[in-house]
């Protein structure tokens, strides 16, 4: 049995008097230490899926198990990185991270918690911003704090919801590199599920890419293995033949799914735009 097992997860949200289906019969397995990306268009239900995996939201039907245990709430040793950073503005960077350390390792003394928080912040290059508050930091620095907060708890499970979605291209690339370093230097293997709308990002970071086929209700397509050694770079991916094969495969799957949806539903300018945008990304 895989580390994370998702089977038959279905979710609908009330919309007025009716129920709006979001996810239908979603199944997925993730091995221990694996990095899996779920790629799809905005608003396709990816975030809902992730919060069900993390135990933040209950599924209407189906089950999620981690390490053989049924997920009913947020697990110990699980960390979450949100797209909008979700730092507490009344705390400094250090205090934000220390709060997470204190909650996950109550046995540590205050000094030990501080030391670990400091060390993790130094790892993401924020050694000189420890006492700054979130509003004094740039978007990239805030997300670094959020990533440090996740890694400081030494998680074996990491959920990331479009972690670099709000950042500019350059910052995004730097942070992706830092994330790779943190994952590879972690003491325990970290099993990661990341949500993204960028095929390139998924290609850069993951072992497998799972396309999210938009609905509603959305469901998952067949996982696509990224058969490239870890420690990839953007430049290398641009010219690698296997990379372009995977990229084409992912884009084709997503475009086909979007095309079906466009034919099935009355024309929606947003959907067609997204389909066009995805098609443009394909080489």
């Amino acid at each position, binding site marked *: 049995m895989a580390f994370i097992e998702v089977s038959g997860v279905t979710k609908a949200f009330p919309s007025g008097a009716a129920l709006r289906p979001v996810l239908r019969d979603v199944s997925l397995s993730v091995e221990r230490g694996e990095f899996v990306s779920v790629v799809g268009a905005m608003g396709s239900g990816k975030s809902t899926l992730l919060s069900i995996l*993390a135990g*933040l939201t209950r599924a209407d039907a189906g089950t999620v198990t981690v390490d053989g245990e049924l997920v009913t709430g*947020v697990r*110990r040793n*699980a*960390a*979450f990185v*949100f797209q*909008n950073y*979700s730092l*507490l*503005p*009344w*705390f400094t960077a250090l205090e934000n991270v220390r*709060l*997470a350390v*204190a*909650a*996950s390792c109550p046995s540590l003394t205050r000094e030990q918690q501080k030391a670990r928080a400091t060390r993790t912040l130094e790892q993401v290059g924020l050694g000189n911003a420890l006492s700054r508050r979130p509003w004094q930091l740039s978007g990239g620095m805030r997300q670094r704090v959020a990533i440090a907060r996740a890694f400081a*708890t030494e998680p074996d499970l990491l959920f990331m919801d479009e972690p670099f979605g709000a950042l500019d291209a350059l910052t995004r690339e730097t942070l992706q590199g830092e994330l790779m370093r943190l994952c590879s230097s972690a003491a325990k293997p970290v099993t990661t599920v990341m949500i993204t709308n960028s095929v390139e990002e998924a290609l850069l970071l993951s072992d497998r890419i799972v396309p999210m086929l938009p609905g509603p209700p959305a469901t998952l397509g067949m996982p696509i293995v990224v058969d490239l050694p870890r420690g990839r770079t953007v430049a290398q991916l641009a010219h690698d033949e296997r990379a372009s094969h995977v990229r084409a495969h992912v884009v084709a799957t997503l475009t086909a799914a979007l095309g079906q949806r466009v034919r099935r539903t009355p024309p929606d300018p947003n959907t067609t735009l997204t389909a066009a945008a995805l098609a443009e990304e394909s080489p």
Partner: protein
Amino acid sequence: MKRLLDFLLPLVGIGLALLVWWGASLKVTDLPSPVRTWEESKLYILEPFAKRGEVDQGIALLAYYSLIRVGQGFLLGAAIGTPVGFLLGVSPLLTRMFDPIMQVMRPISPLAWLPLGLILFRRSEPAALFAIAVCSMWPTIINTMMGVRAIPQDYWNVAKVLRLSKTTTFLKIIVPATLPYMFTGYRLSLGIAWLVIVASEMLTGTPGVGGFLWQEYNSLIYAHILLAILTIGVIGFVLDRLMGFAEGKLRTV
């Protein structure tokens, strides 16, 4: 130029108000003119800490008695209102249960609460505190409640994801997130407490600015009524500014 105007325009306003006051004093024989008010009141202002009798005291001493009473009543109201506000904020059930009561009790005048306080406590001092606390706690309750409701989902998610205990969530997330709202409530509550103090002192005859006002009315020294009125206004203004300052400090955090 702008700074000069900032300084001059309020002075012109005050001058005009004094002029209207003076004009009215010419028509109404019992109303002392600004100059007569100053002549008859200067003893109280120039010797603010003099104590000549139970109610016949310097204006600073009288204000001090009133402020102590307001402080106690306000703190009592805040001590009750803040936790109640937190409870109502986190529990929609409790809100639905108590909302009608709150809506009915909120508009009740301090003059109506005071006799009830006198029946309950049989002495004027606790009755006054009771009236202040009961009248002034509503803005604290309502603003604290709104503050808790306004906490963004993000922060609740942080609490869930970090698996914070209930105590930690309360101390590290709910309280800091609600603090600016709480202080808006405290500011409004203190304003009401200051309104109530005068009424309660007038009714109970206790020494203080309000008690002084009522006694001087009974002694037909009308200039002192105006002195008391102006004192009440100035102190109320200063209190509001102080709380506004604290509130502003918290908003930037």
